[in-house]
């Protein structure tokens, strides 16, 4: 049976316009940082509607939507200033548990992701292993009925707010780099875990270092087979190679920055020349249109089970590049007024300065999730051979 995508879109639009609270939409519309509070509240509303997990199969409590429906869902969410879904639980570890977890793990963890009770973070990167993830050294040894974890993770988003962390640990040093790695699910309140904030250039607190000192984790929190965590990690990365939210959110950001530039231009009353910024915005608009077609084509390839090739890398690089250019335009638009009031005291409202924070935050887009240099290598290997 063919899906009525236009009807599906109308149904979504009708729901989100009525259901998403204005105060949450205001945060998104203003380009402010979306915190656990907004994410969780919106997750609960969506879950009550049965749309808590767009990417999950029905039997796991998901919607069973195809990727085109997910893309439409993300677009409607972005067009209506709704928060994106929080990805660590729904997009990352949830599907891994569905694929590799035991029935007991599914029953224990999945409902709490769906209803927003558990807030997950990802323990992959380590000080000595970023892009070269296979070189990680945080260890876990089996001691009776528990794994004992020692080591350090870094760049861990939301670790200070999370109730759970999914992490790769080295359970054997004898095998090759990619072997001897296991995937462990760890409650963040376990004794021996220390979270230390990393002060980032945007002034927001989202990244952390996480230290593990003789942390005891129940043995049945290991997902899949011992030493086969790399398989789970690869599954996770491949599943999320095409995050539909990226392109949809880009269009939202473009509209926000366009509005910002128009307002700033009017306010400047001819004292500053905004024509260069308008010109750059046009180029961004064209690039977003191109990216949308790329995303649609990749979606089509996924649906028809054709190989994706380098498309995810190209889309990732394009989205990161456009996002950085857009926030640079915003920086130029608000800079003179906002640069000297970067961080407001609690309670004070400095809306323009948010764009300076966004500009800083967006620098990470070409670093996180595989640097643009790594993505260029992927593309170059396709064109030129390894």
């Amino acid at each position, binding site marked *: 049976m063919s899906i009525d995508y236009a009807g599906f879109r109308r149904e979504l639009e009708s729901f989100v316009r009525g259901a998403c609270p204005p105060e949450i939409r205001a945060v998104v519309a203003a380009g402010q940082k979306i915190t656990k509070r907004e994410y969780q509240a919106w997750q609960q509303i969506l879950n009550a509607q049965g749309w808590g997990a767009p990417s999950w199969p029905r039997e796991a409590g998901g919607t069973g939507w195809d990727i085109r429906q997910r893309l439409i869902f993300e*677009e409607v969410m972005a067009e209506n200033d709704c928060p994106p879904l929080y990805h660590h639980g729904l997009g990352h570890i949830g599907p891994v548990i569905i694929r590799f977890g035991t029935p007991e793990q599914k029953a224990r963890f999945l409902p709490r992701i769906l209803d927003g009770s558990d807030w997950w973070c990802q323990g992959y990167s380590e000080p000595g292993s970023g892009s070269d993830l296979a070189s990680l050294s945080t260890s876990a040894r089996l001691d009776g009925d528990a794994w004992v974890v020692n080591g350090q993770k870094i760049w861990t988003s939301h670790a200070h707010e999370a109730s759970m962390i999914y992490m790769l640990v080295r359970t054997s040093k004898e095998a090759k780099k990619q072997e001897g790695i296991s995937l462990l699910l760890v409650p963040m309140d376990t004794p021996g875990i220390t979270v230390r904030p990393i002060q980032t250039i945007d002034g927001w607190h989202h990244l952390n270092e996480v230290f593990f000192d003789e942390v005891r984790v129940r043995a049945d929190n290991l997902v899949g087979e011992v030493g086969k965590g790399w398989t789970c990690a690869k599954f996770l990365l491949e599943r999320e190679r095409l995050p539909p939210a990226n392109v949809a959110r880009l269009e939202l950001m473009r509209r926000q920055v366009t*509005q910002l530039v128009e307002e700033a231009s009017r306010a400047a009353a001819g004292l500053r020349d905004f024509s260069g910024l308008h010109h750059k915005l046009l*180029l961004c608009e064209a690039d977003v249109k*191109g990216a949308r077609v790329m995303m649609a*084509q990749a979606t*089509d390839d996924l649906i028809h089970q054709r190989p994706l090739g380098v498309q995810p890398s190209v889309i990732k690089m394009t989205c990161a590049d456009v996002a950085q250019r857009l926030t640079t335009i915003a920086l130029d638009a608000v800079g003179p007024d906002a640069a000297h009031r970067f961080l407001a005291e609690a309670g004070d409202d400095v809306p323009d300065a948010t764009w300076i924070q966004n500009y800083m935050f967006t620098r990470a887009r070409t670093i996180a999730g595989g640097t643009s240099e790594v993505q260029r*290598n992927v*593309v170059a290997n396709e*064109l*030129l051979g390894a």
Partner: protein
Amino acid sequence: MSTSFPSLFPGMLLDAASRYAEDHIVVAIQGDPVRELGWTATLVPEEAGGVGGSLSDLASIVEGLATHGLQLPVVETCAVVPLLLQAAGAETAHRWLEAVAEGSVQMAPLTALSATPDVNAVTARHLDIGYELSGTVQGVDATLPATHYLVPAQVDGEDAIFLVDAERIGAPKARYRTMEGRVGADFVLAQLAVPESACIARGAAARDARAKATDAALLLTAADTVAALATLIRQTVTHLKERRQFGVALSSFQVLRHRVADMYVKYLGAKGLVIHCFNDYEQDAPDLRRTLRLAKVSLAESARACAEAAIQMHGGMGVSEEVLATRTAQRLIASEFRYGDRLLHVAYLLALAPQASAPHVSFSNQTGSVR
């Protein structure tokens, strides 16, 4: 590597044009291949003896030629001419379209390659016994011989289209080679008298036809650019894999690998944008012209960046016209300035009331080609 560059407009027309271009790339153009191969009939309706094809069909031919670097005025001869002719009354249009389709006349637009067909370079004055045309048209494509010219003009504040014998127009004031290897010419019309019947359309009909010709020219030039970009990157990849420096292939240097990767990302973005434009054209989108101007500006940016990168990566060979990549780079830069340059289109875009275009999802075509 062919899987990295799937055709935009696949099909028999592409294959035929591609083969022709490959066979004639280093041979001086003899005769009038555009008409001899019957391409002028592509857009002409079937009832006028044409093929009744679409702009995508014509884009196949454009892509085939661009892929192998052959320069022929297909856009002008096969798109602008029939679209302008269709503004005439039914009988006149039918007669001349038939002649165009069968190749019994060689018709060309008397328009500057650097301007869109909806721009008036010529002014007409209505006299008792006909019209008088005045104006200078610089940079008209004169690659192929012409027996007739279609002259867009302004008459009493109205748009109009004139059909004039080439003999009456006379010889150009100057001829030259264009950047991409075509023949260009400047024409000066100094109170040129033409009969009443030379005015084949006036008012709304003329304005609409010139607008359609402009849209078509912008679309097809964009298709040409994407096809040329694919060729440029393919040629650069081949060069980097074959050429050795310091005992190793150039393709082993990461800085060059990343540069090619950046070109490829620009190419895929440009391709996506052109597919978007053709989808908008087929759906008769209300903001089509705005999207086409946007594409023009964006493609100019990408094309020039890739052209410059390719020349650099080819080293000394990159400045030799013998090299296909160099000629393709010339083509890309020249295309930037055809049918309005980026500064002109930006001026139009910024003069319009700022509008956030309504986002919409179009999944009508997902195949990677525009068909």
